[in-house]
């Protein structure tokens, strides 16, 4: 069984926000909300300064506090690719999952349910890439099975220096940033 994850090459990302626009278009994300977004992280002291542009979204963690806190089972890990999803007609909008996410990746959709990145499961099931990955003009985003040592994502992680976001929160996120 696949365990999907994403690898993002920060050396290639220019923060053009094509991924953000693609996600909003593909998934009808309502105005004023984002399932993915761009973060610019600057570290260091001039002249020794490091700038990293990251496209961020739900990390589809291996350990999922958003799923375990859900009182109705609406938040769940899908068998297909271990993608973390929300079943809209089971969600009561209690917002426990929003508070439980260390990445603040979820929000309440104007229709009342918790919403977030789905790794475009409707596309992936058809063998396509998530919308954000497919439109990236610099090809900085890679999507694939982290459990398959021959997948492009696994090879990149084995060969390049990388980090995940807030690993100290202990949720084992599945989005990695190549540095």
């Amino acid at each position: 069984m696949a365990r999907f994850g994403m690898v993002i090459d920060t050396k290639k990302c220019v923060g053009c926000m094509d991924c953000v626009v693609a996600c909003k278009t593909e998934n009808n994300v309502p105005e004023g909300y984002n399932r993915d977004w761009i973060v610019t992280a600057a570290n260091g002291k001039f002249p020794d300064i490091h700038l990293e542009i990251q496209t961020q979204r739900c990390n589809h963690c291996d350990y999922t506090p958003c799923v375990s806190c859900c009182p109705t089972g609406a938040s769940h890990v899908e068998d297909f690719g271990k993608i973390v999803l929300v079943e809209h007609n089971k969600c009561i909008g209690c917002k426990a999952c929003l508070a439980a996410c260390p990445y603040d990746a979820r929000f309440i959709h104007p229709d009342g349910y918790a919403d977030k990145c789905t790794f475009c499961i409707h596309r992936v099931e058809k063998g396509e890439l998530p919308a954000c990955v497919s439109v990236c003009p610099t090809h900085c985003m890679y999507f694939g099975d982290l459990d398959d040592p021959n997948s492009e994502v696994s090879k990149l992680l084995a060969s390049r220096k990388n980090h995940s976001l807030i690993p100290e929160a202990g949720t084992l996120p599945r989005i990695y940033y190549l540095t």
Partner: protein
Amino acid sequence: MQELTTTRHNLHIDPSMTVWGWEIPVYLFLGGMVAGMMIISGYFLFSKRYRETNCACYTLPLISLILLSVGMVALFLDLEHKLFVWRLYTTFQIASPMSWGAWILILVYPVIIANLLMGPPPFLANKFPKLNNITTFINQRPRLIQNIGVANMLLGGLLGVYTGVLLSTMASRPLWNTSMLWVLFLISGLSAAAAFVHMIAKNVKERELLAKADNGFLTIEIFVIALMLIGLLTSTQVHIDAANLLISGSYAPEFWVFVVGMGVVIPLIIQLLAVNHKINHTPIAPIMVIVGGLILRFIIVSAGQYSHWLNAHFK
């Protein structure tokens, strides 16, 4: 220099989380206070104090039912997908404290009602005369009354504990992520309930007993607050930052003045003087305890949402 800029501006998420407004603190407070009332009333039943006709165990169940229902209305108002609320009761999610809470609440009602039926208020007894049969049935069985007392104490304890566990299981919010939170909420609920009974008790002995008990609860609460802060201060940087939100940060004035000062220390001094017969019993101290308990929930819920793993990196 460490600087983050983000293009995300999701409602109630950015720049800091405010997804839970007044409804959750009000519910947590009322739930905690009702839990305390159930434990006190249950103790009165178990210790056979119910034999005195003006025992608070006859007035507390109705008040508990009203307060708990108000709390549940607040909880319902907080839901964003209200029409789907019934989904809570189509499943039991063992890892979800909120699921536990939903089912505990279902069990709490019949137990409080059993206590209520021991001596239903006249307006209920007159409207539903058949209730007298149940009242007679219960009152002829002292063991049953004691068991109702035990059930009230047990479920009251579970209710009080769950209000804290609900927040403390969220490792993503460092201020909540302390195993002392359920102790704090349980003891604060007990002290608010004791203060309330102290205020309304008709029985002089009971009033005196509850004032003494409240002094005990308030003293324990000081230690629990101290231990919670020490626990956070000796943990990771994000937990230290979370504790500092209360100790010297943006929530410090409200925390020290309204929760610790006016909610615990001053009423404790007033009630210590009262139980030692230096001054008369006054409703001021119990009111301060109750208001302090409510403000404690507001501060913990708000500051907890503000506390974040990223705070340690960016100052």
